[in-house]
């Protein structure tokens, strides 16, 4: 379908976001454009700096934020030792990148489409709203905990109607969940499409609401990955009886090669 390859790319720059919030924890990493044929929003790359010695062996998976004629951009939050080290990259450093990997979000130009993003889950939607042929049919609700300046929200709100919902106290979480419910009910009524990306508890909520309201919904899963190409079996998720291949229904499939985008009714978060 598409060709993947492992390439060595130079860092163009690393731009911190939300410096006003104190310690910079969010970054846009801009790399040379790889020699890819095509890519689609929702796909991801595996990325490992050439300078990493043997202490950290794995590459890290990141949604593709945007690909232009000149560059490949990913957006990340510092959450552990890998991303902390990525935040030390400088212009001119070399990183090993393989991709584009996995499948992509549904694009249905004439279907009202609702993007639900939680925190750093906003990343793949930047590419989505820029590639979508009819952005006036796309809306977003963005839930976040850090100040808005930490996220590349402007590049979304420049293109589509987007609302933000900041969680400042525990009550805000329930308000956001209620809002998700009413928005998804609305899109169920217009026979719309819902696409969600964010932390797993957020995706669980979206999945439950999708099944409750009967709205077609895709989820972009996030998980640890060692290889990104289907070999390590470290990123599997459970399928339901709705999985299209009967041999894999109610079984396990790799998030990297069968996803990372899944229809909400075809997978479950219940681990057994």
């Amino acid at each position, binding site marked *: 379908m598409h060709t993947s*390859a492992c390439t060595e790319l130079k860092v163009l720059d690393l731009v911190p976001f939300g410096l006003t919030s104190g310690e910079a924890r969010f970054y846009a990493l801009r790399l040379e454009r790889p020699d890819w044929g095509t890519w689609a929003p929702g796909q991801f790359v595996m990325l490992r700096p050439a300078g990493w010695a043997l202490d950290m062996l794995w590459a890290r998976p990141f949604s593709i934020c945007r690909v232009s004629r000149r560059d490949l951009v990913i957006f990340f939050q510092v959450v552990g030792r890998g991303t902390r080290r990525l935040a030390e990259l400088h212009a001119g450093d070399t990183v090993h990148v393989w991709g584009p990997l996995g499948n992509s979000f549904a694009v249905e130009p004439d279907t009202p489409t609702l993007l639900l993003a939680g925190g750093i889950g906003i990343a793949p939607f930047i590419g989505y709203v820029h590639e979508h042929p009819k952005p006036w049919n796309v809306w977003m609700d963005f839930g976040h905990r850090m100040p808005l300046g930490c996220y590349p929200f402007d590049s979304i709100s420049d293109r589509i109607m987007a609302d933000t919902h900041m969680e400042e106290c525990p009550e805000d979480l329930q308000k956001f969940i209620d809002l998700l419910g009413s928005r998804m009910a609305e899109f169920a009524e217009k026979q719309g499409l819902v696409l969600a990306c964010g932390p797993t508890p957020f995706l669980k909520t979206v999945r439950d609401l999708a099944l409750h309201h009967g709205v077609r919904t895709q989820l972009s899963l996030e998980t*640890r990955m060692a*290889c990104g190409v289907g*070999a*390590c079996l470290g990123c599997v998720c459970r399928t339901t009886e709705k999985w299209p291949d009967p*041999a894999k229904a109610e*079984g396990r499939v790799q998030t990297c090669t069968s996803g990372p985008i899944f229809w909400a009714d075809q997978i479950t978060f219940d681990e057994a």
Partner: protein
Amino acid sequence: MDLSVTIPGGLHPLALRNPVLTASGTFGYGVEFEPYGDLTALGGIVVKGLSLKPRLGNPMPRVAETPCGMLNAVGLQNDGVECFINEKLPRLPWRELPVIANIYACDPGEFGELAAVLAAEEGVAALEVNISCPNVKEGGILFGQDARQAARVTEAVKMRAGAKPVIVKLSPNVTDIVTMARAVEDAGADMLSCINTLSGMGVDIRTRRPLLANVIGGLSGPAIKPVALRCVWQVSRAVSIPVIGIGGIASAEDVLEFILVGAHAVQVGTANFMRPDFAFRLVDELNELCDRMGITDWDAFRGSLKA
């Protein structure tokens, strides 16, 4: 130099283009890595462990990164041997490079059955018997920690494996690996591969949870290389069948280290996760390193450690 090597294996030696094989569980069924290099440039492929019936494997999380290594408790998830034969094997260039089937079963009888199924496949060059998986409850490492059990499994596989060379993969999680090696050699193993992962675990003090749902898993990667070298050194001196070295190989120098202590060939595992073209590049680097060091004859270099 010409990197080719022949691993003696009774009536059916394994002829490899070079001594670099990929280790089971780290290279899928090979086809996953086709976009990243020419599979036929490798010495051989050892496929993900196969069982008679499909296995779902362990719950998530199954993998965790550790300093210079990783832990896994995948639990032998696979689609079963029939699926491998019908869907994966035909897509592999098995006429051009040895494809080795890694097999796992719960008892010697089932091991024999599995061996018989694969013995009939022209595309399978050899069988690697997994008596050392630390991540499954029944069988697995139990066979690998008891010399009599290991011998029974080896005999069961040998009896049904026809002309296929039988490689037994040893566990480092034993008091004396030499005892195990001798037991399976006496039971008819044609070759040995060592080592499988070291039993280990990791925890998160903030969540107070283990890093793996299975709690205990297998440690692999450069962190275990010194243990692997020691095992290959001890075993290759104690047995007369060839040994394939596995454990933390991450450079061409590492390949030569294993051959220096007595290995005929090596398997590259966790390093395949550093980048998917790792094994392909390793073959090129090995070629250059041998040229630089003036190594021209594996037989002369193998086991030539001055100790």
